[in-house]
């Protein structure tokens, strides 16, 4: 948004640089002067928190890779070597492992914030789609990272998840063998997962750059969902939001270090401290908590439909539960963005949140009859929310009157 540029090169060197690579101008426009709605609440700080999370994962990950050995005979012991013998290794490793969980916690909050305030609606569809893409890449990266310590859960997660692809007709088996680098999970699997686990974070960083670019074209949504009308509605990003985001980041680090220092293993599974053995199946194979809702959906489908067998159908629902997120901007056609002004949507939104938490819980439970029954109900509701409830609500709901501008709503609030 160059029309907001207030940059004048201060010295000859800056002027010289500005004519060749206007990087200072760009930074000033986008990191300092960028007009940001003045009414953003703390849920909006999670964007910056997520950038910090990605940074922590990359820095700790690069250091871990200096000491880790991607070979099935040595991987498990090399992670222990990092914890025991590398200077500060215990903390670097636990920041990386806990960091993955905190990254997902933050991304779920960020996604659900976007869902409540309608941040996916025009003109922010591409922004939303890039966000979902980042989420998918994060899942792939986290899954492959979880395999690297080569514990029982690592190896069995690799076995179960790669097996999912085998359900795809025709290309399933070749795809499975390509992913594993053989017929079963073994050294080639570990090697390619390590390689991809190192690659994907940089792909994520690139998509994050696009995500922020797509954000800076229409600018931020805000809790009222009303478009920015003029300069009275906004504040420059710096110092107002740099400060607010920095405070949010420090606050977020408190639970982060709590887990990293005092309970580094509580978010994982004890079985992952047993080296992978393809001959011994753990009693429960459970993915990391952040995959549980989708795992519950996968397991809920235990029936055939017409010519589709249950395995493929499970994969279709599993994939569908993520693909449907890409379509969200066109499923919710209500003109009003913010849930604050949608009396009916608000209720269904929270019902959806409860349902999602229930799926998380069910994903961790053994797949017995009651568990699967509840999973089916919750899976059905997950899809009904997107396919039926949102489109219908958009037609029948009478939204509350919107404020004419952000500054009006801010003033109304401060005088109330």
């Amino acid at each position, binding site marked *: 948004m160059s029309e907001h540029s207030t940059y004048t090169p201060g010295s000859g060197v800056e002027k010289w640089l500005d004519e060749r690579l206007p990087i200072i101008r760009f930074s000033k426009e986008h990191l300092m002067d960028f007009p940001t709605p*003045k*009414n953003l*609440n*703390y849920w909006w700080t999670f964007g910056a928190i997520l950038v910090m999370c990605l940074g922590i994962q990359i820095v700790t990950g690069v250091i871990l890779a200096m000491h880790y050995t991607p070979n099935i005979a040595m991987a498990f*012991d090399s992670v*222990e070597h990092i*914890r*025991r013998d590398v200077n500060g290794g*215990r*903390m670097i490793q636990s920041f990386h492992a806990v960091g993955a969980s905190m990254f997902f916690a933050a991304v779920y909050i960020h996604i659900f914030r976007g869902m409540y305030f309608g941040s996916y609606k025009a003109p922010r569809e591409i922004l939303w789609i890039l966000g979902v893409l980042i989420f998918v890449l994060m899942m792939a990266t986290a899954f492959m990272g979880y395999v690297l310590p080569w514990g029982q859960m690592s190896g069995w997660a690799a076995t179960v998840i790669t097996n999912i692809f085998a359900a795809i007709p025709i290309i399933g088996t070749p795809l499975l063998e390509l992913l594993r680098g053989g017929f079963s999970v073994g050294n080639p699997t570990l090697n390619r997962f390590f390689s991809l686990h190192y690659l994907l974070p940089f792909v994520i960083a690139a998509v994050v750059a696009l995500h922020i670019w797509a954000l800076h074209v229409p600018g931020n949504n805000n809790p009222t969902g009303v478009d920015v009308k003029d300069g009275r509605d906004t*504040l420059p990003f710096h*110092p*107002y939001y740099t*400060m*607010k985001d*920095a*405070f949010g980041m*420090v*606050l977020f*680090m*408190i639970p982060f*270090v*709590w*887990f*990293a*220092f*005092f*309970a*580094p*293993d*509580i978010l994982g599974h*004890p*079985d992952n*401290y*047993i080296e992978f053995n393809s001959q011994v199946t753990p*009693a429960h194979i459970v993915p990391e908590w952040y995959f549980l809702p989708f795992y519950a959906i996968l397991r809920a489908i235990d029936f055939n439909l017409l010519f589709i067998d249950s395995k493929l159908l499970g994969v279709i629902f599993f994939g569908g539960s993520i693909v449907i997120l890409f379509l969200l901007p066109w499923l919710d056609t209500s003109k009003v963005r913010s849930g604050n002004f949608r009396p009916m949507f608000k209720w269904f939104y*929270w019902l959806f*949140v*409860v*349902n999602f*938490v*229930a799926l998380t*819980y*069910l994903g961790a*439970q*053994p797949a017995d009859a*009651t*568990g699967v029954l*509840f999973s089916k109900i919750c899976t059905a509701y997950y899809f009904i929310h997107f396919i039926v409830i949102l489109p219908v609500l958009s037609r029948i709901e009478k939204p509350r009157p919107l404020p004419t501008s952000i*500054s009006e709503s*801010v*003033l109304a609030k*401060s005088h109330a």
Partner: protein
Amino acid sequence: MFNTKTVLATLAVLAGLSGVSATQAAGEVVHIEKQSWSFAGIFGTYDQNQLQRGFQVFNEVCASCHGARLIAFRNLAEEGGPSFSEAQIKALAAEYEIADATADGGVRPGVAADRWPSPFETEQDARDANGGSLPPDFSVLAKARGVHDAFPFWVFNYFTGYSEGGPDYIHGLLTSYEDEAPEGFELPEGKYYNHVFPGNAIGMAPPLSDGQITYEVAEGQTAVPETVDQYSTDVAAFMMWMAEPHLSGRKQTGFVVLLFLVVFAGLMYGTKRKIWAGIEH
């Protein structure tokens, strides 16, 4: 900031969760008595005397079948652990013969840098000597085991930082042998009944008995009871140290970091308020 509606909604989520779990709770949960460990909590550190006793139990009893391949003799002298003296460790290591292809005759006496020698050459040897069962390596075993809490109690674990499920399980296992299997339970030949072990039929004979190990009493200290319960507690603590040797230092650093972050967050909040003062938002 976060309004009351958000808080209410969060509570609704938790209520929904407990509703689902109420129907799920009917699983088999083995009750394991949680012990009070010196290394639990924010200020937890290992009790050096307990680790030394635990090492004695490990060395005199467990080590005849169980290995600890990731532990080096030198670790036993490190700060925050059993902290034996360098001389003690040198003497201990020298008691062992270490296979070394570069040494005269292929073996040499151990040095502090050597890893703890395995009691068996191969996995098959270990199984042959133990009725087909493989005695697991102790290096990280205390973190490879845990206890299951029913809902909602596990929720609190995230706030208390409960990480002692492993030692609780080990203590529970060692004190849960029963002479006779309950009626109707078919105990396979060569197995022992233990009500904490998954499946209840364990390959390991009850390893500890009262008075089996003699604890030396240092001058001016009260004697520690020589009971199975005490031995189990001590060896479980020692196993936790083997699995997590830097626990004390980690928690000390963590406390300082946490304190810093809380103070820093307070300062950041003050600065943020100051910058935003006078702006309606």
